[in-house]
């Protein structure tokens, strides 16, 4: 229990002294997770919406698969990305292994199914509501997807935040493809894993609290921004 207090103290100390290493790895965490979030959202929001509006033969199968992919074990994703990017792998020439780019790639693979699934679920209701109108106005597929995303943006927030949460807290995959290299690919979660392995639980917890604080900060910021839009249920 004392460790938890020590952890809080450590977090406090790290933040107050603006520890240079801490700032560095925190920024890297943010950079990697936000990049992954943006890329994954660009893929998953239209795809999830498309799944909600399109009836086709294997729709249920696709949705079930997408839902299952939310359970993609990060370690396995990390391994596969490692094998693809490793020097003997097909993309080895790009030299991406053990760079933030590799970490972003792995995280995009992990969070895209999550964001797409939640998007699909959220967009189904809105599509049921808009269906007749949008068909009647002879909209193209693209216009339908755009309209749904635009008018459902508030409900998509949860999808994006879930993706961000998963990315920022993830450690298995980025450990393998990033390598937790000091000053290069170390992020908050891998640093926490490292300190845990060292048995320095206070520091590990301290970093953990910093990470949680960061997640809170990002969430409050996003909520505050979305609040500047007009209130209430449209």
């Amino acid at each position, binding site marked *: 229990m004392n460790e938890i207090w020590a952890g809080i103290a450590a977090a406090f100390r790290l933040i107050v002294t603006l520890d240079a290493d801490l700032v560095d790895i925190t920024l890297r965490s943010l950079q990697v997770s936000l990049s992954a979030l943006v890329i994954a959202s660009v893929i998953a929001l239209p795809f999830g919406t498309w799944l909600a509006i399109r009836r086709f033969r294997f729709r249920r199968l696709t949705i079930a698969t997408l839902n299952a992919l939310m359970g993609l074990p990060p370690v396995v994703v990390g391994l596969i990305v*490692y094998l693809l990017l490793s*020097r003997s792998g097909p993309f080895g020439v790009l030299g991406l*292994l053990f760079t933030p780019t590799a970490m972003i790639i792995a995280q995009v693979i992990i969070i895209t199914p999550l964001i797409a699934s939640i998007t699909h679920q959220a967009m189904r209701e809105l599509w049921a509501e808009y269906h007749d109108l949008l068909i009647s106005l002879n909209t193209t597929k693209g216009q339908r997807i755009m309209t749904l995303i635009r008018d459902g943006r508030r409900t998509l927030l949860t999808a994006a935040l879930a993706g961000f949460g998963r990315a920022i807290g993830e450690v298995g995959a980025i450990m*393998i493809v990033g*390598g937790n290299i*000091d000053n290069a690919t170390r992020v908050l979660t891998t640093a926490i894993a*490292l300190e845990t*392995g*060292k048995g320095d639980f206070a520091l590990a917890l301290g970093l953990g609290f910093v990470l949680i604080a960061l997640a809170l900060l990002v969430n409050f910021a996003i909520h505050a921004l979305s609040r500047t839009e007009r209130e209430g249920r449209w």
Partner: protein
Amino acid sequence: TMRLAVTTSFHNSGLSDVLLPAIETDTGIDVQLLVVGTGQAIRLGEAGDVDAILVHSRKAEDRFVSAGYGTHRREIMYNDFVFIGPAADPAEIGDAGSAVTALQRISQSKAPFVSRGDDSGTHKKERALWAAAEQDPATFASWYKAVGAGMGASLNTASGLGAYIMADRASWLNFGNKQDLALLFSGDPALFNQYAYIPVNPARHSHVKASAALQLETWLTSPKAQGLIDGYTIGGETLFTFNATP
């Protein structure tokens, strides 16, 4: 049943797969292994969450015992550290006379080098060697990569990067993702790696299974264990040498 915290390098060697079934048949003890970093192993012992630890970091072990967390320290066996690197050996450490020279050549050539960077027994040994070579890793440029991970993960990183790395022989021999890495240097007595067994002190944690821990110690130092440890080979190479004093 009893719980034993061991380091990743011990477990990755595969020796535990040989020892545990034998322990179970001989003593009836079901030993549950917790494979963690050295530091974490010691913390588990301090908290009383395991009944004994098996690690390889002398200083930390002595501190553990003198603080009263462990009853005593019992040396069991040793293996040695080796230098692994790309088969082409750009830093030419293959014919270095000593571990210190090898490290100096690596730092001169600025060939990529992966360090465990996790304060483990292996990492501590590596730092000691750098100190002996009168070099400070903190001043190294980006060719020196402190990856902060267990032995296996660090080896994976090294093979992904084609980098040099210091590993214990057992982990290396049992490692499956060698790619074009090869064992380049070994044999310096400075690379000696002693494993020791420490039962957790029942005076501090009344619930620990002290008798089982002692039974296990007796078994680990028995001729039966000696036979199994010395006889454990991978590809014809012996990994550990039993050196417990009865």
